[in-house]
């Protein structure tokens, strides 16, 4: 399954920015079975890195218990015009990086 782009929304409020990220990923646990009884291989995001103007502000380590099409939200110091970049890597070595400017 090809990973689609992330939807990132970054909005400013005072001297803080609120970042909301929705990723497209199956987050397969490795515990489910397909209709013919075969275990569906685990496939989930393991690492997430969020940067603002190329400076790391948030990193995350995930297991398969994070929901399918993961969503997360965080706040950081920032201002309009800053570049928010989010990357993920999954257990199969696939990765995706998307960025957005704070509005």
């Amino acid at each position, binding site marked *: 399954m090809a990973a689609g782009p992330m939807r990132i929304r970054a909005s400013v409020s005072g001297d*803080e920015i609120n970042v909301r990220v929705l990723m497209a990923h199956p*987050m397969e*646990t490795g*515990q*489910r*079975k*397909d209709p013919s009884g075969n275990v*569906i291989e685990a496939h989930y995001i*393991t*690492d997430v*890195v969020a*940067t*603002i103007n*190329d*400076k*790391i*502000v*948030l*990193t*995350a*380590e*995930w*297991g*398969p*218990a*994070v*929901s*399918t099409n*993961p*969503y*997360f*939200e*965080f*706040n*950081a*110091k*920032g201002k309009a015009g800053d570049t928010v970049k989010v*990357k993920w*890597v999954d*257990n199969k*070595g*696939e*990765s995706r990086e998307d960025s957005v400017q704070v509005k």
Partner: protein
Amino acid sequence: MDSKRRTVLQGGAGAGLLALLAGVGLLKPSEVFAARANDAAFKLEKLDEVLKALGVTSAAEGGDIVLTAPDIAENGAVVPVELESKLPNTESVMVLIEKNPTPLAAIFHFHEGALPRVKTRVKMGQSSDVYLLVKADGKFYQVKKEIKVTLGGCGG
């Protein structure tokens, strides 16, 4: 996708992100080894083993931590959890779901500039206590909440 980068990533599951980050110069060498430091803890099946692997020997109850989650989750596949820590120097937050096959669900690390607040969605196989552990100033603090699940999110 850059085919060379793919080759590098396939070199090792744990080394994948490190190679990627180091490759783009995002991480200084000293920081490289900090990423995915707790890979083994994600595979453990018992809560106390996970805590041990994470280096949690004792955790103070409560403190200034606010956990927002539903009492009853209709769909265990998507359970929203939100955490806000008012503890000074909050470094990271761990989400543990006691009765999941592997209790450790996620760890978020806050770096300079981030506010100690995070919101995400997790899967729950059945009704369970959910623990949030906060590491602040090198000490651990925990909050617990029981979430009832009417439809499990891990079965097939």
